[in-house]
């Protein structure tokens, strides 16, 4: 992914968003005035960007009404992010060593590949019903883990395999042990690929957490917020929550890209 940089790029980025919002506003208003009708789609029921913005501002923080209180979007973001980061860290701790082992050792590859290939094709959402039954708590972190771990493993394997064999041979010739080769040659070489795996994985994990929060019960989380707002017919808040999910996912993606560029001066 290429980040549009420079003033010109930024202006084009902002303009595209403004044009989209204007188009969205116009289409909904025209639909509400019966100027056009698309069969099977209730376009008129979609809140306008203005309504969504007002709802976003109004539901940002905790609201207390009598004995009841509802968490603000900021709390939901925090809870969801926390789950993604926890699941991501566990996936990183497990995924990287597994990926290095499978990528470096033929025996481990033959041993683990069939299992990895079968399990990685089960989407994180397919694990939700099972995790409801097997986890008393932390089921949503497990769903994130499933989403993140396989991109990390696969990208680590790829990174290890694409290590220049001449570098390994040179290290071996100079008397380096196998563990030294892994530490000093393979890991640095595979690191850009590992980070790519983490970035892709966190993207999948972020999408999975929102789905998981709709099903795995917790009083706080963006998925739960969206579902609750839908139940109450508060569609502006619901759409505001959806937009927040998109924005956070985008920020996460760019953050890792920037980190990659900042700390990894080699690789892709």
């Amino acid at each position, binding site marked *: 992914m290429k980040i549009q940089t420079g003033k010109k790029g930024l202006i084009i980025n902002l303009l595209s968003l403004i044009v989209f919002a204007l188009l969205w506003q116009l289409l909904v208003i025209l639909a509400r005035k019966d100027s056009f009708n698309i069969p099977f789609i209730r376009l008129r029921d979609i809140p306008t960007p203005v309504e969504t913005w007002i709802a976003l501002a109004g539901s940002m923080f905790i609201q207390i*009404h009598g004995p009841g209180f509802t968490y603000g979007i900021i709390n939901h973001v925090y809870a969801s992010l926390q789950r993604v980061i926890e699941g991501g860290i566990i996936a990183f701790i497990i995924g990287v060593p597994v990926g290095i082992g499978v990528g470096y050792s033929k025996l481990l590859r033959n041993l683990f590949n069939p299992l990895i290939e079968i399990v990685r094709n089960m989407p994180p959402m397919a694990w939700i019903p099972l995790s409801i039954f097997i986890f008393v708590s932390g089921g949503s972190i497990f769903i994130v883990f499933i989403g993140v771990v396989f991109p990390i493993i696969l990208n680590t394997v790829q990174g290890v395999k694409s290590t220049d064999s001449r570098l390994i041979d040179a290290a071996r010739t100079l008397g380096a042990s196998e563990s030294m080769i892994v530490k000093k040659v393979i890991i640095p070489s595979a690191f850009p690929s590992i980070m790519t795996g983490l970035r892709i994985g966190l993207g999948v994990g972020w999408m999975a957490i929102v789905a998981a929060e709709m099903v795995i019960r917790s*009083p706080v989380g963006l998925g739960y917020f969206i579902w*609750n707002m839908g139940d*109450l017919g508060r569609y502006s808040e619901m759409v505001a929550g959806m937009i927040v999910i998109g924005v956070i996912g985008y920020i996460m993606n*760019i953050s890792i890209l*920037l980190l990659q560029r900042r700390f990894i001066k080699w690789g892709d």
Partner: protein
Amino acid sequence: MKNSRKILFVIILAIFVSGCLEGKKAPSEPINLVKMSGQEMIQRLGTGEIAGFIMWEPYPAIAVTKGYGKNFIFSGKIWTEHPCCVVAYDDDWYKKTNNSDEILKRMALVQLKSVEYINNAKQSDSPDHGQLINYTLKFGGMTDPAAANMSLADVEFVYNTNVAGATTFIQRIQDFKIFDMTKWNQSGYKNASDYANSLITNDYVEWAINNKDENLSKLSLKEPVNIRYAYLVNDIHELPFYVGWQRGYYKDLGINISIAEGAPFQNGAFEMQNGFKANTVDVGSLGIPPVIIHRINSNDFSKDDARVGVIAGMNNEGSVIVVANNITSIKDLQGKTVGFPGPGTIQHVLFLMEAEKEGLTVSY
């Protein structure tokens, strides 16, 4: 590039810091209401994952007869004679159907006949008691006759509408800020009573009362009509619909019931209201709270597309707060998770009312 990095850093930091700060503002030790299905409530109470739940029958009765928990507070103790499920019709269907008034009169009559049958058959010495238990087991998705008996005892089946109850409910909804206030202002209703009266009509029940001793086939519509009916899954409150359907009352009156697309629904607040909006449901039974809330919150007032009308009651009371056996006071639920069927349901409002009485806070 450097600027964008700084901006990103500030945004991420702001999210974390504000999350932490806001977290501190949340009342300490609230009771956490978490939405779940009735089956999930029973299962999670059994495994100890939740400390209790508030739900409609038969779920409380099933949980209690399985020994997973105990009946703690009956909803009638929180609010005597509180309204619950009703029979409602979609206003679009009403307008485009020539004889909609005649159909609705007969649907109210079915409700009356079914409620009379149930109330008689509830008595254990009634010759119809065994049959009623069979209906209850089948409609409630149960296997244990003891649970069926317990759930029947908790529900007060009615056919009369409850305008006073609906008015009180609307006031409580306003107190708890569940209405979208922009939409409420657009609605043009002066107050809760004005709104309740616009929503509920007693004309059909009055007709039903006047004709209740007539032979049903004598009152049959000249041309049979097809009605797409929706109801909530395993909700014993809506047993009168099932009894009327199974005993052929609708058919005798010239009404062919077909179950609406996607029904029975898990959730009256969301799925059934969408069915009314999308014109896939003509008439249905659901809790009056979702009707009241969605008629405001999800309505396009230029079209009035979420307009529904209430023609008869289904039941009053009939929900229970069930808790784990070690809970002795509602205060014991502080800091724990309690299942509920979703925001905006009568169970939600009842739980808030009970918490208010005890000076407790509830997150949802």
